[in-house]
């Protein structure tokens, strides 16, 4: 583990040097019609990068693109760009934890590994960045995450004014930063202490058993009220950094068969609809229940940890501003009224 410290000018030089050998994606300001959003895009100019605001989208699209060409069934090839590696610069704790969730599902399974995802992920280097303060609607600390530092990223940045502290945790990347000046660990610790204090003040309090008790919550009567204003679109799932449900579709006829993998959303009514017409989740409230239960009950039962990282993207992007925090509070109240339910994991 090495710790370096550079000022903005020198970091810019480092960036320009890395640009030659790597594709670099970072948060930049995008003009989208009337909206101005901060999203992860491949960048060429260091000056475009936005450091101080939580990006409105996660870098999910870079490691798990919305439409992914898998190959031609007849030719049997699975194309992947064997070009340069990609560095995703400036990923916050919430998004890093989300990448961990995707990794759990797609490449850490003992039975089936998603080769396509693995190839792309092996060529991606995550460079995390510490959050200076709470932004927008985030509540990652309520769910047990540390916004100030995350262990899962191999390289981690701490920005303080115009100073960039670079913590390199994995040996294989140390040579990229070898020539930079050393950073003083004690000074950094001071800065981070102050940051942690800032987060303590404004926390969203929540006390629910993790995983949520499966059958009990399924049969609870709170879901209708919770989803009264839900439209049933797919925005929350598309902008959620951990949502990974996908579908295949084919194109081509008469001897061609090109297979694609694309994002799907559990909020669409056709998600679980059988061809016979039977739909086990035939109401908005049932589908929302499945979404919450998957994040707070099913995923922790099948893997480790929650599938929600408290980033707040679903709250900010939702057309009706439906708040997952309200949903969690209702869940907490329901369980408390039933007299302190036991956790579902035994």
């Amino acid at each position, binding site marked *: 583990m090495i710790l370096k410290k550079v000022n903005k000018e020198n970091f810019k030089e480092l960036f320009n040097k890395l640009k030659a050998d790597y594709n670099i994606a970072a948060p930049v300001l995008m003009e*989208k*019609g*009337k*909206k101005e*959003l901060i999203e992860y895009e491949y960048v060429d100019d260091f000056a475009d990068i936005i450091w101080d605001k939580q990006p409105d989208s996660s870098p999910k699209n870079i490691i798990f693109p*919305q*439409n992914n060409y898998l190959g031609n069934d007849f030719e049997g090839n699975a194309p992947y760009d064997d070009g340069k590696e990609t560095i995703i610069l400036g990923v916050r704790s919430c998004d890093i934890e989300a990448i961990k969730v995707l990794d759990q599902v797609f490449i850490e399974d003992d039975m089936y590994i998603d080769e396509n995802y693995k190839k792309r992920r092996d060529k991606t280097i995550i460079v995390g960045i510490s959050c200076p303060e709470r932004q927008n*609607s985030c509540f990652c600390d309520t769910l047990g995450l540390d916004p100030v530092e995350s262990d899962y990223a191999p390289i981690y940045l701490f920005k303080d004014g115009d100073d960039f502290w670079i913590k390199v945790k994995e040996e294989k990347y140390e040579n990229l930063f070898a020539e930079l000046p050393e950073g003083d660990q004690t000074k950094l610790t001071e800065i981070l202490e102050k940051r942690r204090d800032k987060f303590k003040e404004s926390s*969203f309090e929540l006390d629910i058993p993790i995983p949520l008790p499966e059958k009990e919550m399924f049969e609870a009567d709170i879901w209708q*009220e919770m989803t*009264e*204003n839900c*439209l*049933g*679109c*797919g*925005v929350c799932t*598309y*902008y959620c950094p951990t949502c990974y449900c996908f*579908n295949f*579709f084919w*194109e081509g006829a008469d001897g061609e068969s090109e297979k*694609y993998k*694309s994002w799907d*959303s559990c909020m*669409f*009514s*056709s998600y679980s609809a059988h061809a016979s017409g039977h739909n086990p989740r035939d109401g908005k409230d049932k589908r929302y229940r499945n979404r919450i239960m998957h994040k707070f009950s099913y995923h922790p039962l099948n893997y480790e940890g929650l599938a929600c990282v408290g980033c707040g993207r679903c*709250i900010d*992007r939702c*057309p*009706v*501003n*439906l*708040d997952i*925090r*309200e949903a969690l*509070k209702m869940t907490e109240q329901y369980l408390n009224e039933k007299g302190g339910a036991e956790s579902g994991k035994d």
Partner: protein
Amino acid sequence: MSNYEKVTEEIQEIASKLLKEDEVDKIIGFGKGLFSKEVTPIFVSREEDVNRLLFSPEAEMSLAKYLLNYKDQKVAIVAKPCDSRAIASYLSEDLIKRENVKIIGINGCPGIEDNTACQECDIRNPVIFDYTVGEEMSDEEIQAEIAGFKDEIEEMSPKEKMEYFRNEFERCTRCYACREACYVCYCEQCFTESNQPDWVGDSVKLNDNITYHLMRAMHMAGRCVNCGACEMACPEGIDVRALAAKMVRAADEIFDYKAGVDPEQKTLLSEYDVNDREKGFMD
């Protein structure tokens, strides 16, 4: 034009009265979220929650669509003039019962922030209501408000129009927020979900996106009330309203028809007049 704070007060008064006198089970209106402080549709059934109701420039959602979830219950609804047109349209299509809805119409609607539909809106008083809040706006005042409106897309050459729409629809992620927010789109199975025949592909390639938006605009002809809910719902800031708005203007010009102004009116494409000035595509 009405004032947001005054309208808020009046809405709360009426809502309180309706709940006290047990006239409705629920009131559908706008309110701030409990944690996020953003405006969201709220469903008030207890008197102590009445003071959450408000009206502000951020009240961008169209509430009319929620009435379809409460067809057999007595509800009250806070309706901007465009929402009141949506409700009139539902009544003309026999989707809801008049006696089950108490409409709190907002007179002289001051508009919604960033909603381009408000810039050309010429119906600023509710077309159907049980109660009103705010001050009515006269025709002269309304015309003065929209005098400066110019349809920029109309001025473009066909090539520029294609460029413009290509740029917009390239960003579309097919989240279907526009469809779900729109009061017209209440089909149980949308054409996008059909795979026999597969009208629109599932990919987010440009041609599939354009197909989806074009087909949706075709379904909106004669039914869109130009409320802008689609545009406000889009997370990518796409000008989703443009195609349907063109349909609205065409219906007005060619057939002198506005959707949702009268609960008794017939829908545009469900009847014809032999004297209709037909603008054929060969002209």
